[in-house]
């Protein structure tokens, strides 16, 4: 095959560049890096996910290896591009273009992930209808306008929570949307995803001696309500929407539909559990505290949601790179030819 025509100096410099790229983008290096990343990733799954992410996937040596792989890909792609353009007069083969597109796609994907990881952020917040929470880093305020549960035909399945939100920046509402599982809101460059829903109860505490009743106090699953000045508190362990006492005496919920709502709680004194109990709707329970008797009454309940607010500017590049990579693979692996009948013997 004749060399590409051109002045010798230009050809020499092209050769030098190609040589340097060949070394940086060598296949051996790429395979070693891929094997190393695959092995460490596999071993990391033996650890709890949070620990693996903290200690391995975001460690300097893992990210360094991934960066080296990106450099390898960059050099490899550049070498492939040089090979394509140094064939004047000959149209580039689909396989060569496909291979180039695959490597560039993967590079764009990795670059997008790196940019997203370095500049993006993720925060969580939530509440019940009427609440709002600020996402300081984003300069946003998310107001929860309503939380509706869509019960499925089989109410033993977790219902779908739909949260209507208003997103504000600097006091100006910049968007309204409804968020539910699989259907995030995309407002002002931010993604707002549904994470989970919880139950919140409304409790009234009455002093039987004086007949004084508190205004309804809201308690979300996992929170505690102080009952006296000596560290006694009611810890809200779980909400049982369709309460049933199992044969073993264990309180369970038969479904998610609140047919017989009951609060399952734990009494604690300075953090130590001293008793457990159930509190049904409009069936007050009396508790003896250091400040005297207190009557606790469950007067209502509603749903709280936890939303995730995230910004990832690399996301479009990750998906764009992925699609380019897939298209490149399709071209380079010759699948596009398909359907031809042959005997399969190699050439």
């Amino acid at each position, binding site marked *: 095959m004749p060399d590409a025509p051109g002045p010798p100096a230009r050809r020499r410099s092209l050769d030098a560049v190609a040589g340097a790229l060949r070394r940086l983008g060598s*296949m*051996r290096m*790429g*395979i070693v890096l*891929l*094997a190393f*990343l*695959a092995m460490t*990733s*596999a071993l*990391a*799954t*033996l650890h709890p*996910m949070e620990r*693996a*992410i903290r200690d391995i*996937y975001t460690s300097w040596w893992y990210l360094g290896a991934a960066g080296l792989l990106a450099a390898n890909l960059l050099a490899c792609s550049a070498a492939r591009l040089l090979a394509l353009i140094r064939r004047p007069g000959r149209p580039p083969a689909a396989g060569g273009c496909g291979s180039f597109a695959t490597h560039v796609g993967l590079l764009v994907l990795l670059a997008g*992930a790196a940019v997203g990881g370095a500049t993006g952020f*993720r925060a969580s917040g939530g509440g019940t209808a009427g609440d709002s929470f600020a996402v300081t880093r984003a300069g946003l305020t998310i107001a929860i306008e309503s939380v509706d549960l869509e019960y*499925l*035909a*089989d109410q*033993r*399945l*977790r*219902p*779908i929570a739909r949260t209507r939100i208003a997103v504000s920046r600097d006091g100006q509402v910049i968007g309204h949307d409804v968020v539910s*599982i*699989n*259907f*995030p809101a995309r407002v002002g460059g931010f*993604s707002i*995803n549904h*994470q989970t829903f919880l139950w919140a109860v409304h409790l009234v505490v009455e002093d039987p001696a004086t007949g004084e009743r508190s205004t309804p106090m809201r308690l979300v699953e996992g929170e505690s309500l102080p009952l006296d000045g000596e560290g006694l508190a009611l810890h809200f362990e779980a909400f049982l929407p369709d309460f049933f006492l199992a044969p073993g005496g264990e309180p369970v919920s*038969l479904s998610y539909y609140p047919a017989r709502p009951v609060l399952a709680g734990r009494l604690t004194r300075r953090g130590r559990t001293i008793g457990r109990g159930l509190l049904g709707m409009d069936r007050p329970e009396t508790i003896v505290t250091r400040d005297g008797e207190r009557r606790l009454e469950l007067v209502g309940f509603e749903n709280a949601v936890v939303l*995730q607010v*995230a910004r*990832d500017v690399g*996301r479009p590049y*990750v*998906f764009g790179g*992925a*699609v380019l*990579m*897939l298209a490149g*693979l*399709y071209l380079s*692996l*010759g*699948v596009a030819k398909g359907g*031809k*009948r*042959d*005997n*399969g*013997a*190699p050439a």
Partner: protein
Amino acid sequence: MEPLLEVTPAGWWVETGLFYVALGAYLTAGFGYGWNLLGRREWGVVASATLRGAMLLHAGFLIARWANLGRVPLVGHYEFGNFLIWVLALAYLRAERRRLPGYRAVGATVSLFLAAYIAYITLFPMVSSLHRPLPPVLRYPLWLNIHVTTSALGYAGFSLAMAVALLWLVRERLASAAPAGGAPSTTPIRAALDFIPDSATLEHYMHEAATFGFLWHTAMIISGGIWADAAWGRYWGWDPKETWSLVTWVVFAIYLHARLTRGWRGRNTVYLVILGWAVMLFTWLGVAYLLPGIHAFG
């Protein structure tokens, strides 16, 4: 109490009947391919026709289950396993149609994998065939169907490559055990050796199947990322299933690079494909039972 869908007795009988008849046909086809390999060539045609019949019956089962569930049956090990078996048979038959007659030798080893997957979904106590409704996170038919279908296609390609790799090893073993010279096809070993394509051709088949699997596996990872972004607010979360899918992808990427760019041939590439299939199997089964994560859908 576990939530289950109500299925009419007629629907249940049709589904169950088609399932067991299809399984019987798959196993019969497997025996046919085995006899064919050992020199009873007339069994090759029978096996091929039986496998086509098994696939049709199995398609009927999938449709019946679809009707009983009210959704595409792609969720959980039982439904995914069934779909994988069907797709593997389809991928094999497609290749067989293009590569006759030598490709029927691959039918014998593919049948072993079909039988193994059938054994898993029918005999393993933790695999349930109960009709379960979809949890909310999976109620996104577009991405559920794309993600799981591409996954099954990828696994089918890798399983087919593994079946060819196994045949490659069998061929090597038989070649070393067979007496030199002698009349063709006088012993089962000789007959098998005469029928199995040569090593280079088998390697070509293996590469073709691995390529098919790799392409669909890539599509599976990408579609999963797009869906995860909508469902969980991130396209990648290092969940064990995601990570092991990536490891599977990397092993086959290494195989393809080693073969295409470094010119690896023979035993090394066969071992790489076996490793890739083993990692794929761990991604499918090992992760589900040994490594807890958010991909636990039954």
